[in-house]
């Protein structure tokens, strides 16, 4: 089915088609000594306040509908290192294909993800609809609606003020944070403010939580330890509707944003209900404990900023999450907290070396006295404060055909680490080969939850081949 799709001829409209015409029809219009200017200047490219005194230009034919396909297809071969020569090897097809249909005033965006649905030697491919939304443009802005991923915040490795889409860690820690974002059904109105600002109003009709594997190599938490865990609540109901607003723009030399979100935190909490089943109230075996999953509703008020100075780029986010559990007494709900991110990018002058450092932090309010089963206690390490440090160094060589990257993440309180070295060779403009690896581990978090500790036996090296469409 994929090959049939790709066989349709596509006609891509890229670049400044209003000035140069369609890319597929453009050619040289200038010869030595020739004057290429003739015809009328299209109104859409003119400054309405200036007099059209210039010689006219040919009017490019306006296409009715254009389509473009992009993405990448390939495969990876992963060798785990936990058991010497007996270590598991995994071959996986992977990739994503994006389709854009553009009528000029409206667009349809779709993205399919190609993943491995292999089980016990069965070669099957799983196609995931990762995004599907429409967009319509108006003089005041644009509206989009559908299954979408929206990234707010200025951070590179994480965010403190990016509440709309849940993350998926079902296959471990992603190479790219945005790859881990799960699309959500939402509608968004974008209203322009001047030339570099906008207001966004977002409505999400329901909610989905964070995704973690509950079994297999990438299981991060043993939910079987939770007694009689009931099915999670159905969150695709009006009861779980959410909304957000954001204003962003450029002030002086800084990009700024303010946001408000009313909805749910993606991390679950648990309610433990013990029921007497009889006959002997003195017999502990006559009691049954049932675990139900709960999600915390609250308000997020946040801000973000980015600025550049010379070879440095500074990024920052800050947010205050006001929980529905105002006094922190409900163990199954998350407490209010303060979250922040601070980061610096630096390009070493005269080189291709790029460095990045970020710190993502969280401080849980009313932390003292929380029980071991508390939703916040499970994710912290005897401290209301959690910090995550991320650093990356990247350089390119041989005219950008070789790219070397080393990144690392360290959970300070959990003493967990994740290191990812990677070398990419761009064989040509469409084909690239990547050799990389992941080293992960951490200290035993005791009763708390630490994904890096849970994944400590998942070190691997991997080779990936990708063809860019």
């Amino acid at each position: 089915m994929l090959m049939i799709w790709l066989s349709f001829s596509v006609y891509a409209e890229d670049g400044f088609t209003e000035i140069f015409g369609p890319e597929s029809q453009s050619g040289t219009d200038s010869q030595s000594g020739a004057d290429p200017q003739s015809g009328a200047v299209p109104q859409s490219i003119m400054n309405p306040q200036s007099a059209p005194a210039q010689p006219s230009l040919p009017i490019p034919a306006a296409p009715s509908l254009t389509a473009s396909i992009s993405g990448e297809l390939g495969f990876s071969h992963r060798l785990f290192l936990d058991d010497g020569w007996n270590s598991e090897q995994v071959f996986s097809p992977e990739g994503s294909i994006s389709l854009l249909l553009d009528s000029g005033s409206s667009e349809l965006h779709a993205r399919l993800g190609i993943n491995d649905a292999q089980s016990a030697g069965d070669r099957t491919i799983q196609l995931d609809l990762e995004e599907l939304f429409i967009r319509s443009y108006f003089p005041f802005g644009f509206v989009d609606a559908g299954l979408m991923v929206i990234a707010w915040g200025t951070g590179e490795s994480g965010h403190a003020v990016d509440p709309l889409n849940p993350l998926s860690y079902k296959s471990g820690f992603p190479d790219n944070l945005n790859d881990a974002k799960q699309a959500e059904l939402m509608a968004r109105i974008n209203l322009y403010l001047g030339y570099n600002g906008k207001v966004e109003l977002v409505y999400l009709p329901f909610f989905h939580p964070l995704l973690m594997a509950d079994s297999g190599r990438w299981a991060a938490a043993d939910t079987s330890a939770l007694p009689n865990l009931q099915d999670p609540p159905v969150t695709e109901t009006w009861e779980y509707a959410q909304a957000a607003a954001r204003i962003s723009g450029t002030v002086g030399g800084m990009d700024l944003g303010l946001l408000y979100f009313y909805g749910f935190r993606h991390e679950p909490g648990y309610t433990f209900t013990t029921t007497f089943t009889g006959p002997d109230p003195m017999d502990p075996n006559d009691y049954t404990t049932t675990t139900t999953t709960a999600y915390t509703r609250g308000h997020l008020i946040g801000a973000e900023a980015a600025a550049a100075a010379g070879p440095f780029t500074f990024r920052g986010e800050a947010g205050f999450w006001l929980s529905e559990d105002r006094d922190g007494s409900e163990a199954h709900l998350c407490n209010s907290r303060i979250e922040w991110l601070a980061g610096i990018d630096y390009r070493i002058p005269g080189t291709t070396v790029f460095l990045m450092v970020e710190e993502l932090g969280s401080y849980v309010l009313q932390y003292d006295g929380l029980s071991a089963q508390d939703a916040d206690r499970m994710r912290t390490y005897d401290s209301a404060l959690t910090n995550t440090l991320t650093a990356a160094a990247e350089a390119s060589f041989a005219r950008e055909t070789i790219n070397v990257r080393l990144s690392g993440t360290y959970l300070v309180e959990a003493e967990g680490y994740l290191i990812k070295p990677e070398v990419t060779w761009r064989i040509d403009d469409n084909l690239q080969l990547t050799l990389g690896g992941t080293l992960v581990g951490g200290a035993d978090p005791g009763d708390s939850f630490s994904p890096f500790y849970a994944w400590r036996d998942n070190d691997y090296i991997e080779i990936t081949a990708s063809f860019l469409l």
Partner: protein
Amino acid sequence: MVSNTPEIVRRKIIRPEIILRKIAVIFIAFTLGSFFAVSAVPTTPTGAEIMQNMSNAQQTTTSAMDIQMTLIDAGGDTSIRRFQTLVDSSGDQTKTVTVFLSPESVKNTRFLTISDSGSQGRDQGQDSQWIYLPALRKVKRISAGERDSSFMGSDFTYADMGDIDDVETSDHTLLGEEQAAQFNCYVVESIPRPDNPSAYGKTVTWIDKESWLAVRVLFYQSDRETVQKELNCEALGRSGDEWYTRKVVMENKADGHRTLMEILQVRFGIPLNPGYFTTAYLETGKVR
């Protein structure tokens, strides 16, 4: 002017002071005559004047270009880079928006730079830059581009691709006049001043006398003796009254890699909607 004093006429005697006066007058007349004669002959411009003329020739309020770069390695293998760029220098800022069309790894990446006029390509602290990454569908502010780093893996640096530096950042010396291919040229040597560091120890530029465009440039390493790169113009183009270098080749002397840059389409002085030079355009690719 001969002075006929009554005494000389009456006495008809040649006195020394009179002779000296005649000589002085003749000398003055000759000198004045020579001065007027010299003023009527055109003087050769200085190196700085030539470079200023070249800079002036490249100034335009707005421009739109469709550019293709062909990277050619020493073995003859090629790869294509294609991009389109709009520039608006009509106000107190210079705004540039670029859309990359190929290769696939950067296709539809959009790039916006806003500089205080006169500072673009020179003082990074005065530039604001944003990039739109299509994979993330997000606009990011980034630090000003590294002037001396390679542009898209080509033999051109970002500095090479930008506007010509202010003439006053270097000392310019006219070396003479030469023929370069079919162009009749001034040859100017430019050495950066100590307070304006450059990636090159010096450059030698051949400037076509008719179009005031650089048709050949030698870029020297910091030792000012070793040629690092050589640029040659293969064709000029003309759009209205504006000349431009339509096709140039930059060769890296160290590894034999070459980059052919062709301007496929060009427009000068056209009105451009200011909506192109906004983060809103970067994000959507649609101009309001």
